[in-house]
């Protein structure tokens, strides 16, 4: 028993030694370099395999445990030099360890999905029992906007959309683009937004399709494609200016979000068979198509990541620790070179 205990302690001492940590780092570097040279996508491969490969998870966990053991051992030695000095020293390695652990746990267990939603749409993340409904969408854009003003937004985001989420109990909360908002253990944020014109298609006078089509056409000059399952043609839709404003030499096109004018082209294969700019029905073949008042849509990403806050804390600690070390390092080098 004593021999077994001694051997275990010896192994533990080796596992938690700085030398073993450095050897593991050398091993990681070597495997990364080999992967980078031969596959060109070493980081992507690593991230992709981390969620599936048990061997990789064990290696990562061993590396982190070894790092934690080393930190504890080094901390005990550092504590003898004084509490303040220890605290200033420990922030960087503890931050790195926290960040590395959260990075590993997050990649291993993260679940995410995104969906395009309109006002009133219900949704339920697959990992959650809670159901939500988008009670309101605010695109964050004025109804009328000029093409020349498009790049002159204010704040961090050009136009930050916001939605109001309602849970099953009727409680409402707001979600924007960044930072993500957390409700019931799930993070939500908006990835994209736009308008969805109501598209009505009639065949020989009978309505065969009527739905809102989410399109990416807000940026002036862009068009998006639309296919309707029961119609053997492809539609290319864009936004047209509602009026042109000329002041001196400046000319600008004004667009409207709530009452937009559209351009629509109908393709049979790659051949244009009909097109129209402005309001009203477009007739072609035996069909009629009408673009009506739009609704707003948002693409919402829902993420279940229990380690997100740990990741944020790790990053902040690492940044603070690096700054402290940088200042401390400069002072030490200055003292060594010029004072002593």
């Amino acid at each position, binding site marked *: 028993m004593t021999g077994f205990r001694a051997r275990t302690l010896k192994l533990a001492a080796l596992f938690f030694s700085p*030398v073993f940590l450095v050897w593991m780092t050398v091993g990681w570097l070597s495997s990364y370099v080999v992967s980078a*040279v031969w596959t060109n996508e070493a*980081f992507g491969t690593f991230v992709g395999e981390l969620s599936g490969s048990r061997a990789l998870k064990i290696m990562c966990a061993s590396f982190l445990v070894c790092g934690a053991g080393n930190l504890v051992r080094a901390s005990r030695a550092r504590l003898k030099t004084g509490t303040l000095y220890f605290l200033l020293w420990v922030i960087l390695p503890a931050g790195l360890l926290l960040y590395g652990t959260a990075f590993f746990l997050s990649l291993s267990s*993260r679940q995410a999905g995104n969906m395009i939603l309109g006002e009133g749409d219900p949704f339920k993340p697959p990992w959650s029992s809670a159901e939500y409904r988008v009670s309101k969408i605010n695109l964050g854009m004025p109804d009328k906007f000029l093409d020349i003003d498009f790049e002159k*937004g204010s704040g961090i985001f*050009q136009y930050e959309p916001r939605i109001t989420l309602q849970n099953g109990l009727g409680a409402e909360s707001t979600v924007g683009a960044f*930072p993500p908002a957390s409700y019931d253990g799930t993070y939500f944020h908006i990835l994209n937004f736009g308008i969805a014109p109501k598209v009505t298609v009639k065949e020989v006078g009978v309505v065969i399709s009527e739905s809102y089509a989410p399109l990416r056409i807000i*940026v002036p000059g862009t068009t998006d494609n639309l296919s309707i399952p029961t119609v053997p043609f492809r539609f290319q839709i864009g936004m047209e200016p509602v009026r042109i404003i000329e002041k001196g030499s400046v000319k600008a096109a004004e667009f409207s979000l709530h009452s937009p004018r559209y351009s629509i082209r109908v393709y049979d294969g*790659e051949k244009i068979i009909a097109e129209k700019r402005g309001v009203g029905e477009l007739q072609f073949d035996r069909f009629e198509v009408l673009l009506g008042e739009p609704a707003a849509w948002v693409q919402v990403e829902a993420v279940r990541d229990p380690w997100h806050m740990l990741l944020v804390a790790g990053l902040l600690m690492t940044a603070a620790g690096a700054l402290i070390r940088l200042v401390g390092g400069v002072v030490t080098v200055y003292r060594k070179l010029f004072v002593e």
Partner: protein
Amino acid sequence: MSQFVVSDALLAGFRETARGGILYLVFLSYASLTQRKYLLAPFFLGISVAFLTGLSAPYITALLPLKGAVGNLISGSFALFFIFSCAALLQSSELPLFEPFRLIRISDFFYRIATLFLAVLFFLPEATGTGFAAAETALMREGAFVVYFSLAAGAAAGGILIFPLGRLTFVRKAGEVFDVPQILLLCAILKLFGSGMKGIEQITLIPSVQAGLMKFFHDFVHQNFVLFMVPDHMLLRTTAWNFIGIFFGANFALFVSLLLLLSVPLFFLYRKLLREPVVPAVSDAPATGAVIRKLRHAVLSERRKKAAPVIFFVFLIVTSWYVRGGQTSPRLYNPAPKPLVADNGLVRILISDPTMDLKDGRIHKFSLAHQGKNIRILVVRKPDSRFSVCLDACEICPPEGYGQKEDLLVCIYCNTPIPVRTLGRPGGCNPIPLEAASDNSFISIKLDELLKKTALVNAGKSGEPGR
């Protein structure tokens, strides 16, 4: 016989001998001063094996697969030497890396085998690259004699220039400052500055190493954006993206990649130059102040000697890194598109005409006016000699297109670097690939394909991971 063949083969021969000669002189001095001259035999055996294998590889069927792996072997061997040198530098920095192996008795035989292995690892990749490049040139120009004679003449010139340096006193005493870590670092440096991914054509490995490190840094930052749920740049205004783009910019990546590369050598220098030395005890009796000062001076002097080559290498890397970075960062090559027309549903691009050659490895842009829309196409010949034909736009950014910087295409909107060799992968910030056919004269793209893929621009629809 063209001047091209002669000068290229001369340069390759000279390069190989110069690299080998410098390493030999340093190793000879080290072996002499440390009583390890028995290591010279495996060193020369390694050189012989490497060059016989490398130069004969193009003519031995079993070794022909090496051709496709030469670039990877060169990069990989540099990385291995650099990692070996880092491990040795750490050991030398009083971090007893090899402590767990102290109980293993290491015989001279082990050192001989290690020397043989390292010599083969050092010389084989470049020798193979030179061998294949020389064989191809000889085949194309139908003049094997002149090519191999030029190669030998270059090697002789290198030998004449390098080997007499061995008589100089400071070269003979190089072993005083070069220990194992410094010799391994010298091997890595010689590979960094004296190797190329393209055999004869390219001299230095620095662009490849820079690109690899920048790619790692870019991927790491992007993964963090995903984990921190920062929305992609469809939603961000240009100025915000310009700020975030600093992390993807060439200068930032250049600095961080340099820091990654130099972290261990700088740690070694810190330990050697700034750490208070531990004066070894000479006897059980307490040493007098004079003896301690004398010992301290000896330890410091030894440390400074061993640090000198590392300082020189750090200086060399920093200088060349920024000289290359400074040269390349303003030069984003973005040619004006040449107009194309569609004919019978087909767009055809001439591979070579008096004004351009698509096979030159540079980015070429074309534009097609179609029903009021201007569709831009880019064509690059990849290092594997295949053409990559893509739209000059991606699925994420506003379609401002790409410029070329060395072996990278760079998104003009968001600064994302895309290695040329990875072109053809869809999704993310990669240029949207097009299906195209090519013969000796033309690259042909179906108009349907062009229009279909144009719908993906700035739409983020393919759903495939990219970047």
